């Protein structure tokens, strides 16, 4: 299939820079390590059991930061193609443009998953082997993997909407940055979700932010009953649909008013 080709191409592009790759690997490990150390210190100096146990916090950090580091979605990709005019050539090809962008991103992510996340995760799990919670239930792991995939699609659709905004706004960098702030705070990347104030937690439940990382992590940690799991998975699907519709709508609206400067 032609989209598989785009996927493979993106994957191969990544194999070019070896030293770079090694350093980015170190980067992820340091990030996870530091977050874990900060929370360990917090639990140790305060001598109180927080809302959840330390091992839950550490496990969620390892999963969450690991995932967020491989989800490298370039929000400026479309805008850049506007700038240099290459979008013209790509629009001429008989492909669904948004699927093409998705295939490109997935190729990058698969590379990072294999060569970045898996080694990092193994190292971090070994470092924190005393606190890391290993999920032994194969059914949970199966649901966990599915919900990771759905979570990624939610994140992708959010980014895709930001990408499409470049038809109307000259520079989407600021909007993309502000979007990332929301994801970092509300989706649990920098703050374990249990420590958000209760009112915010209740609101976040009904936003796409909780569908990205929080749902998979809660499934992994067995914090959801069977019924809740099904609802959470359905909610992820609903978000994907809604966001995809908005994205598609923006794409079709934008395509009509496309003006390329230079090229």
């Amino acid at each position: 299939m032609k989209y598989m080709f785009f996927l493979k191409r993106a994957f191969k592009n990544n194999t070019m820079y070896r030293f770079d790759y090694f350093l980015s690997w170190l980067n992820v490990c340091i990030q996870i390590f530091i977050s874990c150390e900060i929370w360990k210190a917090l639990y140790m100096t305060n001598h109180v059991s927080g809302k959840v146990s330390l091992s839950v916090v550490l496990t969620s950090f390892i999963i969450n930061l690991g995932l967020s580091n491989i989800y490298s979605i370039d929000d400026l990709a479309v805008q850049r193609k506007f700038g240099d005019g290459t979008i013209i050539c790509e629009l001429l090809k008989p492909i669904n443009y948004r699927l093409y962008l998705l295939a490109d991103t997935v190729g990058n992510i698969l590379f990072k998953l294999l060569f970045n996340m898996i080694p990092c995760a193994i190292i971090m799990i070994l470092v924190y082997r005393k606190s890391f919670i290993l999920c032994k239930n194969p059914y949970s792991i199966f649901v966990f993997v599915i919900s990771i995939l759905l979570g990624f699609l939610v994140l992708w659709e959010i980014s895709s909407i930001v990408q499409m905004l470049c038809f109307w706004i000259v520079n989407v960098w600021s909007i993309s940055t502000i979007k990332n702030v929301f994801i970092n705070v509300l989706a649990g990347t920098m703050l374990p979700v249990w420590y958000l104030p209760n009112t915010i937690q209740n609101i976040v439940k009904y936003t796409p932010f909780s569908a990205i990382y929080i749902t998979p992590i809660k499934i992994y940690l067995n914090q959801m009953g069977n019924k809740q799991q099904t609802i959470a998975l359905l909610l992820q699907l609903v978000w994907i649909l809604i966001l995809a519709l908005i994205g598609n709508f923006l794409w079709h609206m934008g395509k009509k008013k496309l003006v390329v400067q230079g090229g």
Partner: protein
Amino acid sequence: MKDVISLYYHYCKTSIKAWFQYRVDAFLRIFAVMARESTAVIVMYITFLNFDNIGGWTIYELLFLYSFMFLTYGIFIIFFTGLRDFQYLVIQGDLDKLLIRPRGVLFQVLASNSDWFAALGHGTLGVMIFIYSSSKINIQWNPANILLACSCVCSGVLIQGALFLIFASLSFFIVKTDNLRNVLYWNIKSFMGYPISIYPLLIQYFVVYIIPLAFVNYFPTQLIMGCFKAGNIFPEIYIPLSTVVGIFMFGVSYLFWRFSLRFYASTGS
């Protein structure tokens, strides 16, 4: 000297004009930088709704500690943006242009660009947190203390400038220095908002002796607050030493810069 100042002034004027070409976009970007940088602060604040202190530091002391990172970076980037983006000069061979002009190369690199978005974003955030947090902890703002704070900020700028000068010099030897800098500077900077005493020993030694960012905020805040924090495993003499470290490091890195400039071989094109 007068001629150098007027040249610097002209460089500044053109760089401001270039950065603020699109006004709405410029202010949106400054706001975005501020929002991005305040993420860590917001997270810290929410965390401390549930906890009381970390390694003996309260939330206000932590914010005070963090504000030094933002303040120094805000000032640093006005002067040192040229070094941050230096590798592109080497990759594209634009450095040739600077080499044949009758002024110092370093001066031209430093003066020719300032990232005003980052400067205003970090700077405003830094000032806001600094004022808020220092009003919550007991600091006597007598002239001596104000002078101390200023000298600490200056030395923080110098230390980071020296680090970037070293990274810039390294780009003569290894062309792509991005990721190295990511690991050694950006990554470490992002966790300097917490007192280093909570980290494992290896990391503590690393940020004191190898990438001495501890002298940018950890020791200076103790100096200004006038206390020796529990958990500080380093000698008390390190606390007032920032200025010396700053000047010394900048001197050494300048010598390294002069040394490595000789190895520049243009890339052609």
